[in-house]
């Protein structure tokens, strides 16, 4: 049996997107949470907890976009024009937010402006990513292999729901990271915020789970047709159990478990979306096989990717290990 290259590449793109969502998710979430923090020293503590890591986290976005282009140019060339507005808005938000990390440490008078850039940029990037996700689930109009819709086809109530859901989800990840990586007032407040956010995220997940099968017949069929339903019922159950575990860990003062449970919650939500959409990369017309690059391209890239991904994951372990331990208020520059 020949190797199904497009399937392998779908898995790799999926992995890159999942890594991005989790890793940049928590640091974007911390950007949002800065907006709920007033004391400058606490803001610094929060930013310090991600300062050495955010650049590496954001690199997964480049890998995700790059891998999509390399392996599925047919999809990349349709998705990007279709989501022109949210993609450009996201990029501009990330520009503002990225430089704010450096500038806020240098500014004397302008520090509050760059904090605002960090907060606003993080929130806008999260909202845009959610809107793109929602827009992709809805589907994109394609004619002759090119995008055939308008600039705002993506802007629907469903996309708005997804945008807010992703914003809440990233903020939950950020709060759980602060529980893990900080102490004192910041950690205590984050614990309370995480509980609230957990409920909000569950509400959004439930809303999407109800909305999608009602609005999209293909998704209803995927989940509720026999025999699928017999295999798929553990997914919502596992989600509920994970959420419960997260809540209990927050309640009992655990520090590691809430973050891990929040990640698991994200992965389960992600799995649910994959189940809803697969094998379409761009619903309702374009499958992973139709959108694929030539086998020569996918092979050439696969060799390097399989060799380099373990090294990249090694970098990840290395840098998180170097910067292990708690970040305390007032550390290092008072």
């Amino acid at each position: 049996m020949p190797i199904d290259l497009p399937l392998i590449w779908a898995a790799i793109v999926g992995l890159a997107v999942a890594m991005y969502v989790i890793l940049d998710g928590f640091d974007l979430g911390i950007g949002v949470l800065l907006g709920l923090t007033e004391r400058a020293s606490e803001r610094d503590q929060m930013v310090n907890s991600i300062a050495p890591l955010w650049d590496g986290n954001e690199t997964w976005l480049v890998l995700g976009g790059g891998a999509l282009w390399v392996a599925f140019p047919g999809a990349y060339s349709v998705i990007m024009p279709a989501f022109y507005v949210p993609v450009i808005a996201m990029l501009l938000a990330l520009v503002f937010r990225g430089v704010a990390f450096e500038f806020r440490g240098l500014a004397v008078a302008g520090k509050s402006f760059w904090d605002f850039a960090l907060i606003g940029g993080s929130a806008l990037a999260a909202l845009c990513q959610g809107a793109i996700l929602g827009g992709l689930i809805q589907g994109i109009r394609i004619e002759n292999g090119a995008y055939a819709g308008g600039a705002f086809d993506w802007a629907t109530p469903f996309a708005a729901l997804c945008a807010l859901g992703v914003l809440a989800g990233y903020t939950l990840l950020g709060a759980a990271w602060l529980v893990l990586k900080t102490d004192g007032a910041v950690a205590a407040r984050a614990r309370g915020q995480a509980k609230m956010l957990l409920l909000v995220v569950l509400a959004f997940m439930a809303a999407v789970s109800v909305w999608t099968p009602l609005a999209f017949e293909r998704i209803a069929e995927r989940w509720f047709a026999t025999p699928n339903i017999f295999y798929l019922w553990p997914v919502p159950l596992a989600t509920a159990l994970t959420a419960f575990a997260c809540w209990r860990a927050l309640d009992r003062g655990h520090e590691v478990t809430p973050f891990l449970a929040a990640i698991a919650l994200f992965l389960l939500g992600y799995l649910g979306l994959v189940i809803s959409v697969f094998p379409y990369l761009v619903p309702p017309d374009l499958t992973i096989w139709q959108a694929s690059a030539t086998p020569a391209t996918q092979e050439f890239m696969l060799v390097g990717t399989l060799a380099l991904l373990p090294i990249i994951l090694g970098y990840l372990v290395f840098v998180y290990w170097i910067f292990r331990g708690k970040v305390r208020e007032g550390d290092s520059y008072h």
Partner: protein
Amino acid sequence: MEFDPVLIARLQFAFTVTFHIIFPTFTIGLSAYIATLLVMGMVTGRERYQRLAQFWTRIFAVSFAMGVVSGVVLAYQFGTNWSRFSVVAGNVIGPLIGYETLTAFFLEATFLGVMLFGWGRVPAALQLFSAIMVAVGTVISTFWIIAANSWMQTPDGHQIVDGIAVPLDWWAIIFNPSFPYRFAHMLNAAYLTAAFVVLAVGARYILAERHPDQARTMMRMAIWLLAILAPLQILLGDLHGLNTLKHQPIKIAAIEAHWDTSGPGNFHVFAWPDEEAELNRFAISIPQGASLILTHRLNGQFLGLKEVPPQDRPSVKTAFFAFRIMLAIGLFMVTAALVGAWLMWRGVLFETRWYLRIVANSWWIGFVAVIAGWLVTESGRQPWLVHRILRTADAVSPVTAASVAISLALFVVIYGIVFTAGIYYINRLITRGPQGRAVEPSAGVPTRPLSAAHDAGREALASGG
């Protein structure tokens, strides 16, 4: 008002890529300089190297952040604005950009974290290793992106199937005919640019009689490097030009504003190329100069613009003038480097105030040369996006001109704010100088690279300075 969507998309890409290239150019050179300083500090045990390394690392952090965020934008613009390009060339170019991410971006991002935040937290050897890895990462990144860009200039190793470029031979794709020249020319340009900034900052301190030890070290190191690299750049540029003549003769014809193949190959020091009338006005020329440079013979012939119809020609004015700006800066760099080396050899470098004043004000010339050089090569490739495979006009996305125009306006505004702030903060770091502690306190926690600068800012404020 109706916009031409292709023109707006080109303007947008030209703007974002021009903004972007400033920062990698600087950080490629600066990362190598910082790594060198750390090695010298470790070998000699002198504190000044360590201080200089920390000083430049702060400036590096700001520049690198601006390079990263503006680079992420480019990775997505291929799809948002040039979706037809991403289909036609994606099978060939996509993997080159993909390998850049896998081999360079993750390496840089990881070790940058250690380089910036590891002071006092990791052993000095690991700190040094991280700085070297960042410098190596920038070179790897240059390798891949220049390979991708060179393939657009001189495509090879592919075949066209149903209008789409399909890879045949990856070695031929990566090491396409113009790649080695363009890689060497760009890498050297980055080192030159950073060296001129270092030289200028050193001269600025000497003139102000501040940080004399560090300033002398900076100037000596920069002049040594420039005395070798600036002449080398002229040689590399010449080789690159000959390669372009072979593979993209019309680009050369535009650079030289050379209309008739049979006409004399004069080098126009100045001219006003009239593209309507197909001739040059107000030309001041060196007879047979261009022939001599390009064919190494006085009466050698090279292709003129009239060999191809007007719609297949690039903008002659752009290529012509941008090339002359680059060349003038290149010659200035050689002169400045050799004069500096001579003054240093005579032992009067730090007392020669006219020289110090000139170089202190020349920090920007490398950036202008790099932008001018890219303008030559990219505008000279027109009307093709991928040489003889895809026309720029056929490569745009099916998005409205209004969307592209509005996003262009937003890019201009936001990049304008970011750039102004970045230059302002970098200038403030330079004004403050490398006077901080040689080793930051080992707090045992993530520290910020800029914390010393931050402290100083507060101290200055507290003391009313």
